[in-house]
């Protein structure tokens, strides 16, 4: 009974999503027909036709895999570094005082400034990873630092009274408390990482990259290509976001962190 109710709900959600997508595509098609010039606004049909051609070319997949590898490497590195930094800065006030201004500066500086500066120092192929890392790092740090500060003081005191080992404290107290903050950091971080990484590739023009393909589309006024690559970026960003959400959900279930238990 419960299963059929859940299935109905999922089915309804999918149907609703399909209707919304179809409406937006119709709206886009209507706008393209109203403008009447593919150079200004490509229609969804033209874009899909061009995408079908692109996916048959090996160079398309080379660009997709290279950009994915670089940008996700930057995001993953930022997740790891941001977590370590948040832990250290929560524990040692000097480290907090030392790193906080740097993280604030990074957070407020336009990504283009960093990319242009980094062009002098870093090889173009690593620029996407660098930009993704730099933009995601302060966000991960801020989320996890807030999460660590919000860990229940009463439970920490209980762990002290019952002499929890470091491992036990991590596994049963910090990890379940921080997972929602980490999940939020992942979800936002992947989106920001893709935006920053692609912007870096457009400026650095590394070989076999989505950024370079976007740049070429711009200078040769290949509007269908520009729309195709933009769609690919959005899809990849969403794909990795969903993948991270699935992984975290599996980890949460493994840790028996179930919503029911938190009621």
């Amino acid at each position: 009974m419960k299963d059929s109710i859940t299935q109905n709900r999922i089915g309804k959600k999918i149907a609703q999503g399909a209707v919304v997508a179809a409406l937006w595509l119709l709206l886009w098609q209507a706008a393209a027909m109203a403008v009447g010039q593919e150079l200004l606004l490509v229609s969804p049909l033209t874009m899909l036709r061009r995408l079908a051609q692109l996916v048959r070319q090996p160079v398309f997949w080379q660009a997709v895999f290279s950009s994915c590898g670089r940008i996700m490497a930057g995001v993953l590195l930022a997740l790891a570094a941001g977590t370590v930094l948040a832990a250290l800065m929560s524990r040692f006030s000097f480290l907090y005082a030392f790193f906080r201004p740097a993280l604030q500066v990074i957070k407020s500086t336009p990504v283009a400034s960093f990319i242009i500066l980094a062009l002098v120092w870093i090889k173009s192929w690593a620029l996407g990873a660098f930009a993704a890392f730099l933009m995601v790092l302060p966000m991960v740090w801020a989320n996890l630092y807030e999460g660590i500060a919000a860990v229940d003081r009463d439970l920490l005191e209980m762990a002290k009274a019952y002499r929890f080992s470091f491992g036990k404290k991590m596994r049963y107290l910090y990890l379940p408390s921080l997972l929602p903050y980490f999940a939020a950091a992942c979800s936002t971080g992947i989106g920001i990482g893709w935006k920053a990484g692609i912007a870096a590739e457009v400026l650095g023009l590394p070989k076999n990259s989505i950024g370079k393909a976007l740049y070429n589309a711009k200078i040769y006024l290949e509007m269908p290509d520009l729309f195709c690559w933009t769609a690919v970026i959005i899809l990849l960003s969403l794909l990795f976001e969903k993948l991270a959400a699935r992984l975290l959900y599996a980890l949460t279930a493994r840790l028996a962190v179930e919503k029911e238990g938190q009621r």
Partner: protein
Amino acid sequence: MIRIKDLQKSYGEKPVLSHFSHDLPDNGIVCLTGASGRGKTTLLRILAGLETADGGSVTGLSGRKIAFVFQEDRLLPWITAQQNIRLAQPAGAKRPVGELLALAGLDSADGQKYPGQLSGGQRRRVAFLRGIAFLEGVENGVLLLDEPFNGLDAEAAGKLCGMLRSLAPQTLVLLVSHQLAPLQALDVSFFFMDQSF
């Protein structure tokens, strides 16, 4: 014997314990009672090592294992009642958690529930059992209980008292309680804390 001498503790400008002295036996049940704000909980917290006294000394506690049942349940919400208890058991503990649950009037189905799914009284009993589990196999342990009967009906309180009775020969049970009725069936030394500021 545990000797508390000249213990002082203030929170900011507010004194909570002022030159408090008292001797506690090595085992048995001692109940601290008195009006609110007399420093009963603070004394328990100092004995548990969760607070540092501003002055004075406590001797006779070194090397003794201390379990603290807090006034609030402080159970980890993301693991089951059974896991909460097991987490406090020393490595190599042999007593099945199910046996402990039964002593407190809980069954194995209750043990599988998360704290959020238990009633207030059931949570209180699980927190109590965690303290008992922590002292498993320990001779000469100390069990500190802060308002252990809060939210419990007479039957459940009676079951807890039964467990305290069996612990008392090898453990010092020091409890703070405003509810004295459940203790009537036990051999308890009462100490009235009446320091006022």
